[in-house]
């Protein structure tokens, strides 16, 4: 006897598509409609059977696991709490509360994703909008250093390139698309204009665009491998469009100039507003990394890389960011929440996680979980744990509990840890 749960939000990526239908039989998900392959994976590849927590690889009761974790935290001088971005905001709030109470450092996957974007926003501001404005108004799209064709699979259909809206009733035909990248991708193939940039030259090209917007003339015929004539054409379009939209990603945040790249883009967008409406939306990767930014900011004042070691929040990227904390061996214990730095961090940083005691909350197997000192098998947010997540454009979306599995949520376990370290 199956039932269909409608209007479910998929929690995988920053798109947070909330039109998913999930067919459920008891505590099993049997079918998922409208989700992309990642959404399919989130719902169908999850083994929801409740598991016992592990301490040192051995199954124990929940109380014993909590006690073991609390002992680790009490003994630690410099605990790091990391992850957060695949967890609901209710759990993120608990994570920050835990950090506040034990004087930990707390960082989210922002630091290896759009952390530089946050730094750029702090430096120059950010003209942005919600995705519905893109769908309804944007007639000129520029995808810079991102590849939604591979990373945000329903973005074009739901929000951007192909979406139909009030001013864009013909969808794709009502839009001009640019893609800026160092190589040809599935995204660049969809573009009307592909500007292929030499690796590491985004900053120069962005600077040149700013110069062109202000009526200046660059030297030479190419900049960063791009023809100045093509840049001039782009600027003409940007200055005369109805609503221009830049989507940006790791091509800017992970390359040499990092936040300086992003700041140059944000400044370009701000300056374009003298001529035409223009906004920028960062392609946030994880489903609730935006929520992690939001929660950390409203509780501490800062979006990531926060230390509570002195009893109050301090912000220092490069100091309190997780990769640096682990690389310098500055963390002597870690709480990893719904994240796999063991797999996704540079090897030398991941290696430190194998040296220190780690408390891992995750709904499934992961490299990090396989080395956990204490492992809490928690519910998967948006699947068997309800909660709130924040879309890449900061719109909060409610997540459903589609099946009941009896697993505790990240919020539950973090709440228990908070109590346990108090006593």
């Amino acid at each position, binding site marked *: 006897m199956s039932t269909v749960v409608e209007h479910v939000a998929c929690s995988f990526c920053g798109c947070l598509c909330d039109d998913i239908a999930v067919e459920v039989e008891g505590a099993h998900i049997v079918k998922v409609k409208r989700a992309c392959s990642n959404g399919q994976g989130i719902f169908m590849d999850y083994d929801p059977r409740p598991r016992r927590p592990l301490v040192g690889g051995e199954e124990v009761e929940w109380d014993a696991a909590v006690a073991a974790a609390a002992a680790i935290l009490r003994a630690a001088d410099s605990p790091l709490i990391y992850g957060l971005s695949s967890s609901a905001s209710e759990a993120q709030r608990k994570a920050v509360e835990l950090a*506040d109470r034990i004087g930990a450092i707390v960082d989210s996957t922002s630091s290896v994703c759009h952390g530089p974007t946050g730094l750029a926003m*702090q430096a120059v*501001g950010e*003209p942005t909008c919600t995705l*519905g404005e893109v769908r309804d108004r944007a007639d000129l799209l520029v995808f810079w250093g991102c590849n939604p064709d591979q990373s945000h699979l329903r973005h074009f259909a739901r929000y951007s390139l192909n979406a139909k809206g009030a001013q864009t009733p013909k969808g794709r035909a009502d839009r001009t698309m640019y893609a800026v990248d160092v190589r040809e991708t599935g995204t660049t193939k969809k573009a009307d204009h592909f500007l292929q940039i030499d690796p590491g030259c985004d900053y120069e090209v962005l600077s040149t665009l700013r110069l062109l917007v202000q009526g200046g003339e660059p030297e030479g015929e190419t900049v960063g491998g791009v023809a100045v004539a093509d840049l001039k054409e782009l600027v003409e379009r940007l200055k005369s469009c109805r609503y221009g939209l830049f989507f940006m990603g790791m091509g800017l945040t992970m390359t040499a100039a990092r936040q300086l790249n992003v700041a140059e883009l944000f400044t370009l967008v701000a300056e374009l507003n003298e001529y035409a409406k223009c906004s920028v939306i960062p392609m946030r990767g994880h489903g609730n990394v935006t929520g992690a930014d939001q929660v950390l900011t*409203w509780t501490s004042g800062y979006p990531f890389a926060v230390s509570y070691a002195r009893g109050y929040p*301090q912000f220092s990227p490069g100091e309190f960011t997780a990769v640096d904390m682990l690389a310098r061996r500055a963390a002597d214990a870690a709480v990893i929440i719904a994240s796999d730095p063991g797999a996704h961090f540079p090897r030398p940083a991941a290696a430190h996680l194998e040296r220190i005691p780690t408390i891992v909350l995750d709904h499934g197997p992961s490299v990090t979980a396989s080395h956990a000192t204490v492992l809490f098998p928690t519910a998967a947010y948006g699947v068997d744990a309800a909660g709130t997540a924040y879309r890449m454009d900061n719109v*909060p979306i*409610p997540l459903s509990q589609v099946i009941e599995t009896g697993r505790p949520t990240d919020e539950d376990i973090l709440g228990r840890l908070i109590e346990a370290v108090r006593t």
Partner: protein
Amino acid sequence: MMLGILGGRVYDPRNGLDGQVADIWVKDGRVVAAGEVDRDHAEIVDAAGLVVMPGGVEVHSHLVGAKVNAGRKLRPEDHRGHERARVGDLRSGTGGTVPSTHLSGYLYSEMGYTTVMEAATAPLVARHTHEEIEDMPNLDKGVFITMGNNHFIMQAIRDGRPELARDYVAWLLKATKGYAIKIVNPGGVENWKWGKNVGELDDEVIGYGVTPRQILETLAWVNEELGLPHVPHIHGINLGRSTSARTTAETMKTLKGQRAHYCHLQFLSYGEGPRHIHKGEAAMLAEAVNADPAMTVDVGQIVFGRATTMTSDGPLQHMLHQTAGGRWMNDDVESESGGGIVPIVYKRTNPINATMWRTGLELFLLIDDPWRVFLTTDHPNAGCFTSYPQVIRLLMDSAFRRQMFDGIHVRARRGALLPELEREYTLGEIAVITRAGPARALGLDKKGHLGVGADADVAVYAEQDDKEAMFARPRYVFKDGVLVVRDGAVVAEVPGRTFYVAPPHDPSVESEIRAYFEHAYTVSYENYAVLSGDLAHTEPVACG
């Protein structure tokens, strides 16, 4: 749980107490008659020689939600040096012009405030506002929902269907657990999505053909129809511009006789001045306010020093970026709203800032009825709420006011009205503009007074000549009868409740709204509303 606050000089303007010695008795979080409390089992607080007031009621402040949080994230430099360490079970936080949520609660509490209204939230992100509210303790809250650029409403006006707008607004307030109708630059924020604005009440909104005047009139009518406890809360067109005094006066005329609240009136009181320095038109606006008893206002007083401008007025914020330079945040919100953020510094040596400062004080001193003019700094736009004690001193101490006036730019002093205005607010009047008046205007009948039945939100101050020092450091603050502040420092955290309204709507409107969602939004209709289960402590306030 029983409490007696005895022998204090009580300022309870709603109940006619203007400093008379009286006892306040509390049982189970409410003020009760003396006979109801068993003195032997009550906690007794000796308030002899102290000033006792209801807890402060903030009528307009930007504290929680999407825009505020963007302002927090934007300005790490604003927080450094303003940290608050964790103490016992209390949380740590950072301050500056946009404090973190726990600290915001503590700082208001430490001034003796117990209720705050979050001034503006776009419906699509109301869920975010309510999440932050859960992390702002010691205060009761309400949320104003921005509607002045809402597509559904503008469509209904265009189609000549005000009742549809009415039912939609009722539905929307319930969906967002909101408290009141907020209107920000009606039509102007929608036009900003086309790179434009409005400048006159009869300008057209692009794509709708409706006007700011129609939006204001319709929403005022809707407010009356729904019997909402508060009135339409209006941030008018042309804020910050030299046309603002004229169009604000026109707006007031348009809505004359209908109840309305004009927020941060100071920012909308400018006329054309020489050399592009706006002229303060406080006298003209004060006259309009005095003439219309249906109207309430809050001032939005400038405080010299750092501030962060953050409003839903997208085109205004862009203009500020163009004039002040520096960082600019903009956010266009689909089908509903917009806004922006620009950090700012107000200097007494800047003739424009000085004129703004002077204009706010003139409004306070020229508006006769303290029940209709409330103390705000439109936090954090004109200044941080932690400066309220300074503003109180400026109102009560004309010598201090004169001294500060003498230190502002000469061009703002020339021909100014302020030095002639020697009026000094009394403690009773301060109790009105910070407590009794806002509570009444908000329709919160258990707030802002200490009569039987009131919530036991009480602030006790040691009277001092320096009124800034006095109001900055209450001796005691009680929230629902629980001691939360002693000697100006928070000692306990209580959660507070969120007030919301739930006026009925014609259920047939839902199918129209549902259909509208298909093309208007990128979220499902089913996922839009904030449900009761999503919120920890809520309390409906009756309509009609």
